[in-house]
């Protein structure tokens, strides 16, 4: 394989998009950390200068990786993974407390966060394991090892280093699992559990307007019913049973409402009775028709019921107070613009004040005057919103969209599983970061401190994202030559 074929095989579109995002990001780091005693964006004493230095280092490292043969990473993937698990484990001993998180290692004047690079190393290990020629997802057993590979670093980062945000990013690998044969029911199940969690926390304490019982419980039962009805209609194609189920529920509630005229009825109990009737029906069907798949639905329902109960306990007993407050503020249970909601509130003010065309580069008052905390790292998107307006921020989102779509396109065109799986991991990671970060800044998702790729200030994230991308580009460049 010649050097020329590598250069000609490199996806220059991706590199162009990377440069656009990174340089625009550097400009905004300069904007966000700019004070009125102006210094040059190249001055190393300020954050913009450092960011430029990080950008340079990342480019050099990325370029170096582009010249390393793709197979090298595949060969050392497990070794790297094992080594990095050790690094993650010893990090808290070398780290000092940064806002409650024990994930930063001091290297002289620089600080380094091993968790950032863990994503790339996990992606490599997963790609190696799942990319084996004989690997297929036939049953849930085939997913055990990948889940362990994923959960190990995530668990260490979340529990051992108290860095929830970085750990949550590992959930982005589920996107790849789904693409490679994990059943859609798992995702549906996961999403419905998230919904149940939100509903039971948000409406758990809201009493029903009639009888006794809570709105949250009723909504949770309705979600469960929707899942069951969906299963019956889409999977079993059994219209008759669906109608019977619906009738049972409606009759149960009607009976409850009628009795309620004379005695106060606990509708939590009514819902439970209706659900038990449905489960009995399922059991009957299983025994009569020998459709054991329907046991899955029964299991799911029982699990979901236990989960709803557990949610309240976990929320009130297990979560740390600041995490609880963040969730409460997001769900609208608490209004606290000066406290937990301060970041988001100020972020929305900054973005909203940008209007259609923005206030102009270096002219944003909200970010210049430091109303938005973390404005050059996690909340950097609001600097874009304020200074570049709707045009700039929507434009940036579209650039990210094109970038991620390009990564998916690259992933789809890979011929061997190893490259494809790795590419999907990369696309998933970028997508997850974009969604969580921008969703947080726009006040749509809870505050989870993860950076905007190539954009937020920070050496660890800039270097890890660049390396992540560089390996993908090398693998992509090799896709033609590998089989020659």
């Amino acid at each position, binding site marked *: 394989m010649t050097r020329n074929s590598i250069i000609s095989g490199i996806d220059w579109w991706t590199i162009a998009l990377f440069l656009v995002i990174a340089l625009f990001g550097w400009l905004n780091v300069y904007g966000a950390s700019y004070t009125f005693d102006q210094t040059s964006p190249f001055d190393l004493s300020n954050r913009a200068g450092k960011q430029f230095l990080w950008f340079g280092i990342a480019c050099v490292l990325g370029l170096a990786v582009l010249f390393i043969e793709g197979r090298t990473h595949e060969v050392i993937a497990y070794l790297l993974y094992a080594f990095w698990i050790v690094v993650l484990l010893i990090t808290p001993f070398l780290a000092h407390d940064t806002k409650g998180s024990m994930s930063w290692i001091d290297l002289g004047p620089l600080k380094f966060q091993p968790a950032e690079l863990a994503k790339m190393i996990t992606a490599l290990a997963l790609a190696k394991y799942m990319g084996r020629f004989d690997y297929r997802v036939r049953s849930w057993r085939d997913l055990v090892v990948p889940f362990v590979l994923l959960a190990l670093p995530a668990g260490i980062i979340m529990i051992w280093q108290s860095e929830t945000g970085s750990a949550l990013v590992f959930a982005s690998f589920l996107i790849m699992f789904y693409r490679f044969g994990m059943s859609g029911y798992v995702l549906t199940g996961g999403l419905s559990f998230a919904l149940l969690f939100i509903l039971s926390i948000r409406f758990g304490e809201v009493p029903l307007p009639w009888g006794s019982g809570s709105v949250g419980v009723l909504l949770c039962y309705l979600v469960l019913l929707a899942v069951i009805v969906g299963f019956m209609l889409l999977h079993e194609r059994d219209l008759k049973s669906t109608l019977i189920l619906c009738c049972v529920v409606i009759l149960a509630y009607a009976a409850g409402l009628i009795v309620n005229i004379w005695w106060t009825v606990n509708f939590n109990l009514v819902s439970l009775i209706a659900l038990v009737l449905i489960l009995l029906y399922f059991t009957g069907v299983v025994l009569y028709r020998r459709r054991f798949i329907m046991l899955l639905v029964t299991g799911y329902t029982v699990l979901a019921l236990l989960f709803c109960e557990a949610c309240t306990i976990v929320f009130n007993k297990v979560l740390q107070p600041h995490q609880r407050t963040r969730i409460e503020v997001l769900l609208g249970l608490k209004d606290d613009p000066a406290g937990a909601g301060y970041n988001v509130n100020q972020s929305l003010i900054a973005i909203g004040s940008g209007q*259609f065309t923005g206030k102009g580069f270096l002219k944003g008052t909200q970010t210049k005057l430091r109303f938005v905390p973390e404005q050059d790292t996690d909340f950097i998107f609001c600097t874009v*919103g304020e200074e570049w307006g709707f045009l700039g921020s929507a434009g940036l989102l579209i650039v990210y969209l094109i970038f991620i779509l390009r990564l998916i396109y690259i992933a789809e065109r890979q011929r061997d599983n190893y490259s494809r799986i790795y590419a999907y991991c990369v696309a998933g990671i970028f997508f997850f970061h974009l*969604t969580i970060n921008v969703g947080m800044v726009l006040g749509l998702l809870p505050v989870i401190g993860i950076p905007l790729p190539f954009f937020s200030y920070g050496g660890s994230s800039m270097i890890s994202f660049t390396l992540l991308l560089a390996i993908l580009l090398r693998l992509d460049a090799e896709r033609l030559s590998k089989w020659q």
Partner: protein
Amino acid sequence: MGSVVLVVLVFISRLFWLQVIDQSQKAKADSNALLRQVIYPSRGLIYDRNGELLVFNQPIYEVTLIFQEMRHGFDTIAFCQCLGIDSLEFEQRISAIRDRKRNRGFSTYTPQIFMAQLSKQDVASLREVSYKFPGVGIRKRTLRGYTYPYAAHILGSVGEVSQADIDRDKYYQAGDYSGRDGLERTYEQRLRGEKGVEVIMRDSRGRIQGSYHDGAEDVDAITGTDLHLSLDIRLQQLAEECLHGKVGSVVALEPATGEILALASSPTWNPEILVGKQRSTQYNILLNDPTKPLFNRATQATYPPGSTFKTIQSVVCLQEGGITPRTTYPCSGPGSSPIKCTHHHGSPVSLLNAIEQSCNPYFWCAFRDMLQKEGYGDNNAVFRKRFNLWRDDVMKFGLGQRFENTDLGEQSAGKIPLEREFNRTYGEKGWKAITIRSLSIGQGEILVTPLQLANQAATLANRGYYITPHLNTELTNSPELRHETDMDSTWFNLVAQGMHQVMTAGTGRWYNIDSLQMCGKTGTVQNPHGKDHAIFIGFAPMDAPKIAVAVVVENAGFGATWAAPVASLMIEQYLTDTIRRKHIYNKMVNAVLEHPSEQQ
């Protein structure tokens, strides 16, 4: 792939909502980062008719604290000593500043007002050693200052705006000053000027970060417009000195222009005491004073005009044909009926003698004949028509109504009784001239203010018209202030002749100055609550009047004794610019007449 596009679309629509549709974030951003610091304009000055400065602005000082800078070794006790407060007060003030409910703009990084309205002397000792106290600043604002301790009722005062003012006029903010009463209130709009603003950027901790857009959005303050009054402060001073120790009022007008030369009400106060931090305490003292100093007697108190009303009565009776210049009536002195005469003079009396001697029977007869001239008619209708004619004529002298379009504060309308009031008491047929005989000599149901009395004197001086009394010389030429009586000037000349005789030979002769051609009329008003009120109206010189005066001294006794000398001194002062009759001046200034409220 679809989900990536979906997520980005959701984000873009959220951005569109925040940045393009919803405008509330923009406003929040401005209140966040921009500090609109008010630049206060200096208030317009007030001058008297001779260009004498009456009201000016004087600097006051505020002591401010920046809490953030105070952390490093702040010597509280020394600081308190400099300001003359104890540490308890210090603590109270600090916690008041920290209370975000009362002090919304609290920040530990910006200057917070610790004490306000301090004089130069109050801050002098602090200023010397302020370098010892980090975070302490001394800021300058302006308050009103007064050259003379007079004219408090007219000038009014400046104080902090009330919540009602803020709600009514968006110009004001809490802590602003505005005219609370008197001219300061009437002319608030022009005196206050226009506030300017300096737009300053501050960071999330409230630290000032420089001017916004290099001052492009700053607005300069516009100084208030000065006010030139018709008041003559020397005359005002004389009036207040003469009223010292008495209850009453003096009003002097320039007849040809309606300009108020002096308007004094006693008891009064030194306007200086309602300035600065003692304002509210002093105001409460004035408010609770039983002699009611805040009540402007010159425009708000009403009295029966007594014998001074005989001047109007003469003109009206001549005009409506009740009498002629040659009419005479017999007078039996104290034995007269139905009204006694209080003076001794010959009989029968002519009009001029009647005015000179203030003969009650003459004016009763003239009033009766004027009302009965056409008989009583069916159902008393002709008589009642004549009564209304009389009433309309009297009203033409400015009585029984408030002066419109002028710049005086509170006024009373006074009272000229209505036909229907007598109808109600006596029935339409039940009242005749004899029933309302006290009106003929200015007693009974008729009430006037001292200002109306002075205006009456001016109308007589002008021989038939008056210009609404006012203080701002800019109003003088406005046509809507001129009011005609539409009565023959012959009658006015006759009455002026009679009033001149009052001063040369009649009830005012002890206080006449021949060379000044004084005209006057005394009055002694029966007061059911105590001693009679002394009243005097007059003008001078007779042929080309330059000043018209009305004087009321409550519970003093004879008008000739207590009111006439004051009016005479006022005329002398104004026309000769000096007082030669020091003995009269000394007697009036030193005399103290007790107010009924003090006798208890």
